[in-house]
């Protein structure tokens, strides 16, 4: 049995590489001399490690789905695909951190270490199959996130963001554990599959105990993906953190949370039961609220970063709407949405970060007349904004269309209508940037150093998928459709 247990490590290579990478980076960071050249080696080591992880994930993709480590971890196509998206997000955030002036030069290697640590947590969360690994994933993700948010040590807002994040995070983790302990107490198992087996046959008393417990369980995940009653921390943290950190937060923890939520929903609530009705009802209400609150609050923002923070809340709401449809079509559309969301968010944050580095703030006015100075970048930003709004023929349109169509197929008309209306609202603030960039005269004629040739190429290469996924979306859609959940 022990040998079998260890043999499972063959399917767990991506995580092993990440842990080794993290430990290796800590040793490197502790021993190197502080000069520019050595720092470059650490950066290269991080990139190599992450690319190796990506390679291992691609190799895992073709293997058959199975539950490993006595059923505590599930390696399936779904989790592997989500992990790949997370690795790409981390790669991009670390690359952005290299030239961003928002992170102190001496803390850049720490940023890389912590990003890898958070990625490990995200990996655990994406393939967790019992409540223990699930909690460990959330906690690894959270503890490092708190510090990451407070990375600008001498900045008051950054420290405030870190403290706020830590306090809210501690409370929500406590609530979640309370709910989990009730689930374990009543059902006597921490395995997701074991819980799922008992859910349809609950007595009414058990049901009355478990209903609040599941709400508490949702609180833990809802906090991580910043869905509405638990979103209060999100704009402050996103605005206070350095921009590369914000980029990272908008992608990795959010997608990990979404993945865990998909797995829980798909495992627990397959068979009809009163619990399922309650959970889906909860998801519908929270999804509609998340979209609306995120969008409506984004309208009045002056800072582009804060606007993107609220917009990412509303995108989490849209992904929640996809989870409401618990079947293959719903999961497929959420995975596809996650992939497109990655590229759109990255480009928007990259450009914002570079503009912010130049002027020291990221107000909307800083984007005025960008098209006269950097026409290429302005066009890229405009493309991404159109895509985030959901206009054809861009990736955002296909992603949103898929979620709406799966909602309509499963007769969730109300939620589909809310989603459609929200897209209209979001057009206002997304297109505001486009209007400023193209119609307003430029504020100054200075050169923005961040838009060097290499960075422009990187940004362009990240925008290309937004075009390609909008027109030739079948390949990725098939990939997403192949990303089936394995339930055991």
């Amino acid at each position, binding site marked *: 049995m022990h040998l079998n247990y260890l043999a499972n490590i063959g399917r767990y290579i991506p995580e092993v590489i990440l*842990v080794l990478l993290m430990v290796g980076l800590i040793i490197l960071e502790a021993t190197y001399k502080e000069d520019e050249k050595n720092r470059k080696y650490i950066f290269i080591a991080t990139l190599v490690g992450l690319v190796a992880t990506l390679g291992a994930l691609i190799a895992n993709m073709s293997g058959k789905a199975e539950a490993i480590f006595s059923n505590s971890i599930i390696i399936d196509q779904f989790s592997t695909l989500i992990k790949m998206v997370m690795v790409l997000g981390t790669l991009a955030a670390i690359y952005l951190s290299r030239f961003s002036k928002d992170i102190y030069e001496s803390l850049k290697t720490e940023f890389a*270490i912590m990003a890898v640590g958070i990625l490990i947590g995200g990996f655990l969360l994406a393939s967790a199959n019992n409540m223990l690994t699930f909690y460990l994933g959330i906690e*690894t993700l959270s503890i490092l996130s708190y510090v990451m948010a407070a990375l600008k040590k001498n900045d008051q807002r950054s420290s405030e963001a870190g403290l706020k994040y830590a306090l809210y995070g501690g409370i929500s983790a406590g609530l979640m554990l309370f709910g989990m302990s009730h689930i374990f107490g009543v059902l006597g198992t921490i395995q997701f599959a074991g819980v799922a087996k008992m859910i349809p046959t609950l007595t009414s008393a*058990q049901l009355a105990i478990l209903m*609040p417990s599941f709400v508490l369980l949702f609180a833990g995940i809802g906090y991580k993906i910043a869905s509405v009653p638990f979103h209060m921390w999100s704009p402050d943290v996103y605005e206070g953190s350095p921009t590369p950190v914000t980029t990272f937060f908008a992608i990795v923890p959010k997608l990990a949370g979404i993945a865990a939520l998909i797995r829980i929903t798909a495992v627990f609530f397959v068979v009809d039961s009163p619990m399922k009705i309650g959970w889906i009802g909860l998801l519908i209400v929270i999804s509609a609220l998340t979209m609306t609150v995120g969008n409506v609050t984004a309208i009045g923002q002056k800072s582009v970063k804060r606007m993107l923070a609220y917009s990412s809340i509303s995108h989490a709401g849209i992904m929640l709407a996809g989870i409401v449809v618990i079947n293959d079509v719903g999961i497929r559309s959420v995975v596809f949405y996650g992939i497109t969301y990655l590229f759109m968010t990255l480009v928007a944050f990259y450009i914002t970060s570079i503009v912010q580095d130049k002027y020291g703030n990221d107000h909307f006015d800083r984007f005025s007349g960008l098209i006269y100075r950097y026409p290429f970048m302005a066009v890229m930003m405009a493309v991404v904004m159109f895509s985030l709004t959901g206009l054809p023929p861009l990736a955002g349109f296909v992603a949103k269309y898929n979620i709406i169509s799966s909602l309509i197929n499963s007769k969730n008309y109300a939620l589909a209508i809310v989603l459609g209306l929200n897209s209209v609202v979001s057009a206002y603030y997304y297109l505001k940037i486009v209007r400023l960039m193209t119609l307003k005269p430029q504020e100054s004629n200075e050169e923005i150093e961040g838009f060097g040739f290499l960075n422009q190429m990187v940004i362009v290469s990240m925008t290309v998928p937004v075009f390609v996924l909008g027109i030739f979306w079948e390949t990725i859609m098939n990939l997403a459709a192949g990303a089936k959940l394995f339930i055991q």
Partner: protein
Amino acid sequence: MAYDILLTIMTMVFALMVVFSKKTVVAAFSLLMTLLSIAMIYFQLGTVFLAAIQVLVNAGAIAILFVFVMMLINLEQFQNNRERSKSKLIISILTTLIILGVFSLIINNNIEVLSAVNISDNSMKTLFDKLFTEYYLPFEMATVLLLAALVACIVITGSEKGIKQEQEKLQENLNE
């Protein structure tokens, strides 16, 4: 049975004192006592190992850490003067009612709490057998979590000299 009731009352009283006491030191001491009485409840239930861990980790380390921190900082700025508002009161009453309802359901319906865990069989050998076979991965991942927390601590408390210089340089660049 008498012991059970006594311990329960003790835990409740101390827990309430944590929340309602005006002085921070008293609150911290009550927290320590709450954790100790919970340890005694574990002992009463026959889970000796859990009781020992509770005393060592929660009461011994964490509560003492609280008191220690209080010694180091100026206490007067942390007076326990929370504001009382109507909405807070309503929410706390509602929460209490829900939790009481859940507990009464558990007791009234004889729901077999923790049927999966055989309480009498809690020798350390069984526990660690499980920990190093079935739950080895979570155990290892907990070490990664601790490593992450360590890194986090170092980053938070690390030297700020270089950072200050950098910040000044950045500010100068912006002013130009």
